[in-house]
């Protein structure tokens, strides 16, 4: 397979990874053959003998209490085995974090089943039966009566004076104070957050009448710089409200799961974003020991943040199978996925931004509230402020936010959580400012965008945190060049017939990596290198890609490498969750550290066997050999020696700083060859972020309100490129995820009944292949991040915000500023506004 073969079908192909053999090169991932032939097994593809099927009874009400439940008729049906209700759920266990802190289980957090459902679609009970038809018919035989309780599906509704509370005790999470430390005792853990009520006054709501986000008091707030002075000095101050949509993750594979118990262990087949981290999550939900959980998850049909440790739904089949003493398959339907499958919270944002004459943002007052759903608070609200502060580098900034509970499905992180929303609320204002100030759109972003160790957020202990690096200006410049930005801007006329064209550019960024995880590999006596990968295989290919960094260090051709993944019983190391774009960064570091450990051990073995000092040896070409020629040995031989030597060489002894799970895995693999295991202890100065400059051109038909995306380019500053094709897939794929928020993805809710109306794809409108250009462009700077050994940063989230905002900016370039104040923007919004000559949409209203 030739690498980097630029052909007509791959116009994007360019050379990455200069000076490397594997890093930056294309290759065929080991999972692809199984995928392409249909042999890849996703959770629902497994079958166990005597397997029962499970169906869920979902709450039809947004908030209610089950008053009466009678399952006798259902249980009496032939073929119905077990009915599981909330009463039979074990209490959730506490979490012991890796640094030893105990996070106490919050009794108010989400559970798998609930007799006081907090959103329409919440599972109340589960039926296991011999087949799905029987289970479905059993559900229809269950008599259930509810007592309706007050509810709110709109966050503003519950903040109004006297507004309904989505939970009986309030509408926001409140952190009670940590009890004072007792002398001599360890510092007490903070108590779990509890629920309180926040209501704003009528006066504070006055702004809502004019379509502007009311700004009442918020529990969270921070600031830096002199914002008042900033506004005073500004030549242009804009104060705008923008609303982003609630969007379901909608991975194509729903969160189906198969579970059975064997010899006291629970086996779970499901899709997950982390093979390693899902195991303790299951253990916690079932309140059993981690060693009693086996997770099989070789293929995951997409996650986008919704399958981070796979959550609550897993325990239903696990408990049912225990009760029924038979394997239980819970196939989650697309509609159920809409309810229990997680979503991105809508953010309602209001920005007051002060610009200097040359477009520099000198003051920024940001106010956001989120539609969080009923359970645990998501980080979108605080993250949005930090991302905006990093991406636009305002000289002074004040941020306020509140995460508001509602009776809508639970949210979770979705690709660029908070980042997308912050960027999408901010970008239209920047675009408007450029037009008002007569500045070029690229220029105004260039003057504001982060560079180098750019600071972000409020000061922590007197010092503002900062990024490891940022080369976004360069990405912006190169992107503008590749997109022929100036030519497109200069092109006239903008309107031909009923069609108007507009171009848009957006900045985008997100967290790009974490540190401190472990790697584990074994060089086998046959000379093959086996990488143990705890990363979830959800399609990003980081599960395999990151180990190329290790192979590169060891100088082993990829054909001699194997990767083990997807089964927690196969001895995997402590690995990050594949969420928040941390994997490529975190796990290339771990892979690098592990390969360095292997190299050191190879050198030591060679020195022991062949004499000299370890440093006299180099590892390359599947051999460890003395510098300048001379004695050496094949890796196969070294592996045999490692087994003979035992101790640290074959895994019987491992470094003390490894995570317990890595140690257990190493112990299980010990003696099979040269075992290397290492924790990523590399220093890092700053927090890691990745950046994208996004460019789009749209063509709007002003008679129908319909528009098409003509061209799109995402230019990435994501550090070193590891695997160009998977990177390209991420950059464009996640751009389209963001674009979906601009062009149509949404929830539709009936406010009267608090019921979701958009349970089908044709109603929630995820983008199709015909909604995006057929040849989208991407490129990466390929400048290594200076704070990480391989130079690679993560990529999943950063393109998302730019994907959405570049489309919105192109639309306002085509149509003017006063057309839309929320996303998605569709024919209805455009046409009504054009017809009226001013914004006509209900500005603070989502779910239409």
């Amino acid at each position, binding site marked *: 397979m030739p690498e980097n073969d630029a052909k007509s*079908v*791959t116009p994007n192909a360019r050379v990455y990874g200069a000076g490397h053999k594997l890093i930056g090169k294309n290759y065929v*991932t080991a999972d692809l053959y*199984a*995928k*392409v*032939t*249909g*042999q*890849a*097994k*996703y959770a*629902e*593809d*497994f*079958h*166990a*003998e005597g*397997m029962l099927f499970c169906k869920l009874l979902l709450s039809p009400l947004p908030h209610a209490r089950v008053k009466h439940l009678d399952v006798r008729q259902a249980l009496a049906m*032939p*073929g119905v085995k077990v009915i599981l209700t909330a009463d039979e759920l074990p209490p959730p266990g506490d979490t012991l974090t890796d640094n030893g802190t105990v996070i106490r289980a919050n009794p108010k957090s989400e559970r798998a089943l609930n007799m006081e459902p907090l959103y329409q679609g919440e599972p109340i009970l589960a039926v296991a039966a*011999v*087949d799905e038809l029987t289970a479905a018919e059993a559900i229809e035989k269950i008599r259930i009566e509810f007592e309706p309780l007050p509810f709110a599906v709109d966050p503003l509704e519950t903040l109004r004076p006297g507004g309904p509370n989505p939970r009986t005790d309030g509408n926001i999470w409140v952190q009670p104070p940590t009890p004072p430390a007792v002398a001599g005792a360890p510092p007490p853990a903070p108590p779990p957050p509890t629920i309180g009520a926040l209501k704003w006054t009528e006066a504070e709501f006055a702004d809502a009448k004019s379509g502007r986000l009311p700004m009442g008091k918020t529990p969270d707030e921070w600031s830096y710089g002199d914002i008042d002075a900033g506004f005073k000095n500004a030549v242009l101050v804009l104060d705008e409200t923008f609303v982003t949509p609630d969007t379901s993750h*909608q*991975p*194509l*594979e*729903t969160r189906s799961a198969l579970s*059975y118990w064997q*010899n006291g262990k629970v086996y779970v087949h499901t899709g997950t974003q982390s093979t390693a981290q899902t195991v303790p999550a299951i253990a916690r939900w079932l309140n059993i020991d981690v060693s009693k959980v086996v997770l099989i998850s070789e*293929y*995951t*049909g*997409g*996650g*986008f943040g919704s399958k981070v440790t796979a959550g609550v739904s897993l325990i239903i089949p696990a408990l049912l199978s225990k009760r029924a003493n038979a*394997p239980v398959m819970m*196939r989650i*339907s*697309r509609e159920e996925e809409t309810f229990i499958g997680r979503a991105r919270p809508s953010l309602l944002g209001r920005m007051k931004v002060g610009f200097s004459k040359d477009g520099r943002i000198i003051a920024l007052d940001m106010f956001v509230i989120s539609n969080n759903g009923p359970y645990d608070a998501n980080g979108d609200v605080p993250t949005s402020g930090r991302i905006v502060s990093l991406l636009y580098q305002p000289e002074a900034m004040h941020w306020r936010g509140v995460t508001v509970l509602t009776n809508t499905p639970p949210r979770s992180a979705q690709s660029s959580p908070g980042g997308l929303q912050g960027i999408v609320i901010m970008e239209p204002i920047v675009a408007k400012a450029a037009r008002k100030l007569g500045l070029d759109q690229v220029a105004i972003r260039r003057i504001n965008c982060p560079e180098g160790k750019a600071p972000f957020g409020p000061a922590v202990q007197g010092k503002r945190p900062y990024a490891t690096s940022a080369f976004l200006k360069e990405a912006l410049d190169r992107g503008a060049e590749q997109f022929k930005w100036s030519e497109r801007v200069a092109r006239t006329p903008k309107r031909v017939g009923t069609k108007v064209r507009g171009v848009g550019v957006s900045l985008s960024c997100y967290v790009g990596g974490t540190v401190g995880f472990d790697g584990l590999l074994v060089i086998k006596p046959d000379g093959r290198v086996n990488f143990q990968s705890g990363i979830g295989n*959800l*399609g990003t290919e980081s599960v395999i890609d990151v180990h190329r960094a290790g192979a590169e260090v060891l100088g082993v051709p990829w054909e001699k490498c*194997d990767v083990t993944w997807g089964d927690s019983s196969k001895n995997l190391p402590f690995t990050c969750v594949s969420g928040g774009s941390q994997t490529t960064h975190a796990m290339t570091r771990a892979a690098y550290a592990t390969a360095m450990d292997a190299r050191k051990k190879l050198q030591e073995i060679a020195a022991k066997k062949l004499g000299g000092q370890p440093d006299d040896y180099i590892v390359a070409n599947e051999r460890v050999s003395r510098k300048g020629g001379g004695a050496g040995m094949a890796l196969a031989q070294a592996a045999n020696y490692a087994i003979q030597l035992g101790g640290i060489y074959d895994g019987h002894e491992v470094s003390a700083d490894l995570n317990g799970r890595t140690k257990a895995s190493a112990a299980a693999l010990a003696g099979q060859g040269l075992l290397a295991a290492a924790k990523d202890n590399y220093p890092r100065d700053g927090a890691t972020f990745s950046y994208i400059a996004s460019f789009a051109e749209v063509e709007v038909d002003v008679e129908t309100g319909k528009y098409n995306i003509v061209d799109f380019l995402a230019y990435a500053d994501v550090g070193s490129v590891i*695997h160009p*094709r998977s990177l*390209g*897939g991420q950059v*464009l*794929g996640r751009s*389209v*995820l963001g674009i979906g928020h601009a062009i149509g993805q949404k929830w539709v809710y009936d406010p009267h009944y608090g019921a979701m109306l958009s349970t*089908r*794809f*044709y109603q929630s409108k995820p983008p*199709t*292949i*015909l909604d*995006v250009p*057929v*040849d989208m462009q991407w490129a990466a700077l390929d400048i290594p991040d200076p704070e990480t050994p391989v130079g690679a940063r993560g990529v999943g989230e950063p393109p998302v915000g730019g994907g959405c905002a570049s489309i919105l900016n192109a639309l306002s370039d085509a149509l003017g500023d006063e057309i839309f104040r929320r996303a998605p923007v569709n024919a209805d919004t455009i046409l009504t506004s054009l017809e009226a000559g001013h914004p006509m949409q209900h500005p603070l209203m989502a779910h239409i």
Partner: protein
Amino acid sequence: MTENDDAKMIEPPQSGLTRRDLIKGVILGGVAISSSSYLFRASTLAAQTSRGTGDRLLTINVNGQQRRADVMKQETLAWTLRHKLGLTGTKLGCDRAECGSCTVLIDGVPHYSCSVLTHTVRDKKVLTIEGLASPDGALHPVQQGVIDEQGFQCAFCMPGFIMAAVAFLKANPDPTRMELAQGLSGNLCRCQDYDKILTAMMRGAENMRSASRA
């Protein structure tokens, strides 16, 4: 060992094997986990209730083989393929004819198998992703295109896309990207890797053309 053990079991032998043979090697301490479930009707209920009738036994032609199965009247082809014949390469992404993951070819025409009653394909030829590669393991040119371009991410949608592409390219061997996108537009990819998918399918088209020239 990177591949899934079970993956090798995908096409169960047609005869001469007992259930025990079939599940050999995938026994996990007594619970037989298999991806190929064609012998096991999930339900033994049919025998106990009046639900079953005599005309449920059905022979259908799948991937060139006559396969026999006990099929409920309301059963969809996707369910039969996945749960009765063990052909789990055909995925169910929505079960409502919206996403295309379940696309199979019926007499060469792409259909959403979640929305076809198995009883309506008795006299037809069904082709699934498992039947694309030749018996010697050589991939179909479209499959090879995916390998060549690392098309797709999570690949849950992949079997459907490939089946739609195979049928489309047979009728339109040399499409533009736009034409091909139209042909594949009945398939949804939530990783939204549409650009790379198109590239892979274009490569598949090229592979098909060179294969037919050869």
